[in-house]
C-alpha cells in the first residue's frame, strides 16, 4: 500500500508529443540491485511490476552493472519468487563485449575483476597476462587484486593497451558494510600509469543504453528506465533521451534529490508504484 501517488517532479523539457498528450511507452528498463532486489530479498512491488509488464506485453528487461552470469542472477531471482529467464538480463560484461566488438575486435585482454567477468569475456576474447600481448586492460572490482596484477596492467598500459572499466563506484555495499569497489583498482592503475581510463562501459554509458534499446527494439524517447541510482540509472536515461523514474528503495534518499545534478522525471517510493504510473501513460 502506498500512501501517496507517484510524484511527477516536473514536466520534461524534451521533445514529446506535447504536454498533456498520452505517451506511448514501447519499452521499459529495470535496474536490479536496489530496485528489484536487495541482497537476498525481493523489494516491495517488484514482482507486481514485472507481472504487470508481462501482462501488458511491453518489451522490458533488467539492466544491471552486475558482473554475475545472467543465468546465476536469473536463478537467484527465480528462487526469491520472481521467475526470470537469463535472456531478460543485460549486464556489464555484455557492454564490455559490445565495446570491444566495435573498437577492438579480437583484442587480447587482461582482466582485473571477479571470475564471472573474465568467464564472460573469455567467450569472445583470448585472455592473457603477458603485458606484451595485452591489447586491452579491463578493470573492475577484484578481491584477488594484488601487486602482480597491478604490474601487468601497468606494463600493458605503458605499452599503449586500451584501458576500460566496468564502473566507477568507490565502494560496494556488503552485509558487513562497505568495501572498496572498482574505484580502488582504477585509482591504483591510473595513478601509476598517469593514464585516465579510455571508457567506462557499465551504466550510465551509451554502450549499456544501446544494448538495452537494441534488445527492446524501442526508440529512446519511448523507453523508460527505472532504477535507484541517480548516477547510473537516471544518468543513463537522460544521456540517451529516455524517460527516467527513480525508486527510493536503494541508494538514493529523498534529500539527495535536492542537490542532484541529474533529476528524474518521476520519483517512486518503490517499484510498486510503476504499474499505476505506466497505466496512465499507456
Amino acid at each position, binding site marked *: 500500500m502506498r500512501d501517496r501517488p507517484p510524484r511527477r517532479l516536473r514536466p520534461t523539457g524534451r521533445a514529446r508529443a506535447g504536454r498533456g498528450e498520452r505517451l506511448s511507452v514501447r519499452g521499459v528498463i529495470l535496474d536490479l540491485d536496489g530496485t528489484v532486489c536487495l541482497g537476498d530479498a525481493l523489494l516491495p512491488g517488484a514482482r507486481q511490476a514485472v507481472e504487470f509488464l508481462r501482462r501488458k506485453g511491453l518489451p522490458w528487461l533488467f539492466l544491471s552493472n552486475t558482473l554475475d552470469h545472467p543465468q546465476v542472477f536469473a536463478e537467484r531471482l527465480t528462487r526469491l519468487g520472481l521467475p526470470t529467464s537469463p535472456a531478460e538480463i543485460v549486464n556489464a560484461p555484455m557492454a564490455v563485449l559490445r565495446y570491444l566488438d566495435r573498437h577492438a575486435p579480437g583484442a587480447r585482454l587482461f582482466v582485473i575483476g571477479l571470475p564471472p567477468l573474465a568467464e564472460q569475456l573469455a567467450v569472445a576474447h583470448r585472455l592473457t597476462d603477458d603485458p606484451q600481448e595485452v591489447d586491452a586492460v579491463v578493470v573492475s572490482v*577484484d*578481491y*584477488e*587484486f*594484488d*601487486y602482480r596484477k*597491478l*604490474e601487468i596492467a*601497468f*606494463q600493458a598500459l*605503458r605499452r599503449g593497451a586500451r584501458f576500460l572499466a566496468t564502473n566507477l563506484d*568507490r*565502494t560496494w555495499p556488503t552485509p558487513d*558494510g*562497505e*568495501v*572498496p*569497489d572498482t*574505484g*580502488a*583498482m*582504477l*585509482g*591504483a*592503475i*591510473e*595513478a*601509476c*600509469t*598517469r593514464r585516465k581510463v579510455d571508457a567506462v562501459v557499465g551504466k550510465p554509458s551509451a554502450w549499456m543504453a544501446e544494448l538495452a534499446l537494441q534488445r527492446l527494439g524501442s526508440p529512446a524517447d519511448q523507453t523508460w528506465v527505472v532504477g535507484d541510482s541517480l548516477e547510473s540509472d537516471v544518468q543513463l536515461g537522460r544521456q540517451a533521451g529516455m524517460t527516467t523514474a527513480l525508486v527510493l528503495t536503494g541508494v538514493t534518499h529523498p534529500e539527495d534529490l535536492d542537490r542532484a545534478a541529474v533529476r528524474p522525471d518521476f520519483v517512486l517510493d518503490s517499484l510498486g508504484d510503476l504499474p499505476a504510473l505506466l497505466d496512465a501513460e499507456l
Partner: protein
Amino acid sequence: MRPALILDVDGTVWRYGRLIPGVAEALQQLRRDGYPLLFLSNNPVPPELYADRLVGMGVPTAPSEILTCLTILEAELAQEAEAGLYVVADDRLQAHLAEGHRIAADPAAIDIVLATGPYDLTYDRLNVAFQALRRGANFWATNADPFVLARSGGEVPHTAAVIGALQGCTGRTVERMTGKPSPLSARAALERLGCGPGEAIVVGDGLDTDIALGHNAGIRTVLLLSGVTRREDLADSPVQPDFVLDSLASLPDLLRGPAAR
C-alpha cells in the same frame, strides 16, 4: 660560498643497480671543489644501506650524507609514540618499522595508514586501510612516485598506485608525505645541510619529485635525463627545471660555468 647540492640517488647516481658512467668522477670532483653534498632519496630505506651500496660502487659516502623518506618518516613518527601504524604494502619496510613502532592490523586500532611501495599489495590490505581511513585514521605516505626504475631493468609501479587506490575508494587525500616534493623533505634536507633555500641546488631525474621539490621550496633545480624523465616529458610538465643535463657527469662543468652563478 659554494651552493649545497641536494642529490637524488636512483636514476641520478645509479640506474638498474649500476653506477651511471662518469658519476663517480663527477662526485669526486664536486667534493674537491668544496660543494657540500646531501643525497636525498624517495626510496624508504635506511641510509646505512645506501651508504654501503655507494661505497661498494666506489663512491665513498657516509650515512650522515644520506637522507631518505624513511629517515624523515621516523622523525615524524617519533612524535607519535603510541600510534598504531598500518603499512600498505611493503613487508620489508613494515618489519623495519615494527622495531620501534606499534604495527596494528585491526582497523579500529590503526591511527596512521602509511602508503608506501606496492610490492606486497593485496585487496585485503587495501580493505583494511580503507576501513581504517573511513574510521578517521591519518593518511600518510612515504612518497608519491608513480613508478620507479626496477633493478632488473624497466620501470615498476610505486607508491602513487597505493595512494591512488586508497584515494579511489575513500575520496581522501594524503595528509603527510615525507618524501620529495613535500615541504617536510625540503625542510629536512636544508636543516641537515645548514643552509637556506637560496644557497642550495636540487639535482635529480624526477620532475614530480626533485624538480617539484625545488619549485615548491624556492631551490634552484637541475634535471638529469639519466633516469625516469625524457626530454619530451618537459613540454607537459607544470614545473620546469633551471637547467637540464644528460647526466650528473656534466654537473661540475655546469657549476663552474657562468650560467650557475
